[in-house]
């Protein structure tokens, strides 16, 4: 069953923090912006209205004079930059500017003034924001209008908006960064636990986590280390037990094999039935002996952290040497000449045994050895053993390397004195050297066992 993997915790935390910071900073920024805008607009409205009243009073004074000259009156009005004044009297309009006429004034300003109301409104003149005031002057049958361009205010607000938006963005980013950092900080112990667990999975039981000062994380570290210790102890105990059993079996086996050798030396004194029984007994004692050796070997492989000196081993030399022991007769060898100096960092005894077990397997169960080859791989070397047996059914390709797999294999491979541990030991030794072993069927029939070992030197 596959579970859909969610985004990494650090990413999720960063996003959460980022979104949180975005929400808070946006809220703060918009509140600041709207409050500032309202305050600034009010201030401006106030100032401008006061000026409009003052100007209206001046206009009313000027118009109450005899022969009022309205255009001249407009000229003397104290007006700031961007302020335009309009005067209406008896249906006639006077303006300080050509750009602003009575048509520029919206009805919303003009109509209430006609009804005697003072009006102030925000309008747009040619797209630019402006404040318009209208003050009725009933004593002279007219009205004073004033339009103030407010581009400066809107610029100020624009700048404020930009600054606040930038601040919000920065806060969002900072939030995301803090979230990411916090998650890294939080998950650091998790990652070290995961790394330690990985090391343990490949058999490095020296692993323990450094003590943690934080109380909560310290609990995790302590219980993890306790678990490693318990696991180590248990594995060691199991391995020790198998080892102890094998050792205890050695003494009776010594007596058995020594006494048998006496009988074998006196074989001609036995009847033929007695001699047959002796042969059976000898064969089984030998097998028993091998089983004890193999059990011990496997239990040693299980024992974590047994110190071993590694040396550089010329793999081709080793292969030829094992073949020269004479147990396998004439064997066709195929050694890549580029590999003659290839070395493997490892334990000679283990490599020899792995090799012998592969050869024994080919001889016992594979109908004999067809060919032994040493072939180059990337940064590795493959020792290939071909046999002429029936091959290995697909279902057994993995299981064949299990301990005592014989009984579970889908096809009987005969039992000619094997211990059921030979290939399992090959796999242990291959792993011990950082390599692995695999089997497949050759195109021409028969099985091909391939032992791959990482090389240390250049080919």
């Amino acid at each position, binding site marked *: 069953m596959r579970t859909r993997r969610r985004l990494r915790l650090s990413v999720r935390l960063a996003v959460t923090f980022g979104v949180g910071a975005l929400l808070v900073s946006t809220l703060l920024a918009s509140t600041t912006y709207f409050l500032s805008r309202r305050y600034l607009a009010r201030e401006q409205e106030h100032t401008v209205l006061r000026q409009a009243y003052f100007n209206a009073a001046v206009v009313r004074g000027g118009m109450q004079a005899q022969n009022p000259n309205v255009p001249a009156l407009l000229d003397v009005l104290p007006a700031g930059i961007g302020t335009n004044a309009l005067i209406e009297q008896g249906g006639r309009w006077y303006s300080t500017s050509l750009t602003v006429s009575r048509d520029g004034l919206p009805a919303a300003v003009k109509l209430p003034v006609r009804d005697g109301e003072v009006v102030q409104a925000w309008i747009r003149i040619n797209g630019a924001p402006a404040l318009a005031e209208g003050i009725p002057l009933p004593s002279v049958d007219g009205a004073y209008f004033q339009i103030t361009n407010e581009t400066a205010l809107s610029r100020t607000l624009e700048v404020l908006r930009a600054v606040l938006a930038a601040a919000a963005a920065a806060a969002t980013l900072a939030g995301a960064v803090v979230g990411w950092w916090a998650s890294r900080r939080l998950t650091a112990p998790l990652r070290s636990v995961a790394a330690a667990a990985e090391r343990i999975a490949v058999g490095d039981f020296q692993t323990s986590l450094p003590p943690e000062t934080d109380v909560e994380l310290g609990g995790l570290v302590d219980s993890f280390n306790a678990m490693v210790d318990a696991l180590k102890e248990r594995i060691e105990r199991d391995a020790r037990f198998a080892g102890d059993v094998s050792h205890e079996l*050695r*003494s009776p086996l010594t*007596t058995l*094999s*020594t*006494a048998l050798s006496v009988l074998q*030396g006196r074989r001609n004194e036995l009847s033929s039935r007695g001699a047959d029984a002796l042969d059976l007994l000898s064969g089984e004692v030998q097998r028993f002996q091998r089983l004890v050796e193999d059990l011990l070997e496997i239990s040693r492989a299980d024992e974590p952290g047994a110190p071993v000196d590694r040396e550089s081993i010329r793999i081709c030399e080793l292969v030829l040497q094992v073949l020269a*022991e004479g147990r396998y007769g004439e064997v066709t060898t195929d050694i890549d000449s580029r590999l003659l100096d290839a070395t493997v960092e490892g334990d000679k005894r283990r490599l020899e045994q792995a090799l012998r077990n592969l050869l024994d397997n080919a001889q016992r169960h594979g109908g004999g050895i067809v060919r032994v080859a040493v072939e180059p791989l990337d940064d590795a070397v493959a020792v290939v053993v071909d046999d002429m047996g029936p091959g290995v059914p697909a279902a057994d390709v993995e299981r064949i390397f299990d301990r005592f797999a014989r009984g579970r294999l889908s096809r009987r491979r005969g039992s000619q004195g094997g211990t059921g541990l030979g290939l399992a030991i090959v796999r242990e030794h291959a792993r011990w050297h950082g390599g692995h072993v695999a089997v497949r069927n050759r195109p021409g029939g028969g099985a091909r066992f391939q032992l791959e070992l990482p090389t240390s030197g250049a080919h």
Partner: protein
Amino acid sequence: MDGVSDSVLVVDDDDRIRASLRLALEDHGYRVVDAADAETALESIGREVPDVVLLDLMLPGIDGFECCRRIRREHDVPILVVSARADSHDVVAGLEAGADDYIRKPFDMPELTARIRALRRRLQPTATLDGSSELRGAGVWMAPDRGEVRVDGQSVHLTKTEFRLLLEFMQHPGRVFTREVLLDRVWDYGYFGDPRIVDVHIGRLRAKIEGDTANPTRVVTVRGFGYKFDA
């Protein structure tokens, strides 16, 4: 067996193993003396020195290591350690206690007798390659036929195995020997031996003929290959 058969002292606390070894070794023409513990074994050696001692390391009371050291203090007799434990630690400790070789339980009789014969051969006086009776080099003088060794004029006592090892080196000064070759030529085992035997014996030889064992100048290590004698 030259009329007089070789004697083997079997030291093992397991009665049945002693009984079966007596049967088997006697069938191979050896005279067998046995002892169930170290005290009895040392007493027996005090009465008569056997030709070979077969010593189990796990003994009640005085253990095999100590027994080995005590025998070695007084006698040159070849000691073959028999151990049920084949851990590096036990093997090396046994060899360092003075054993010449070790064999693991359970063993095949042919292998055991082959080792006993090899140990016996080392007891024979040895002749040099060119027939001369003395060898010299790097301040070491040895007379193979008389079994004498002097280092810087001082007489040094070597066990038979150490003597054979030094002889091999001095006959071929400068030649690099792999541990396998030394096993074959000194121990006479071919591929069956354990290279650790060589390392331990080299260590013991150095202790006797080198001024500073941490920086040997006579028997030097050739990393990745083996050892050589620097004359």
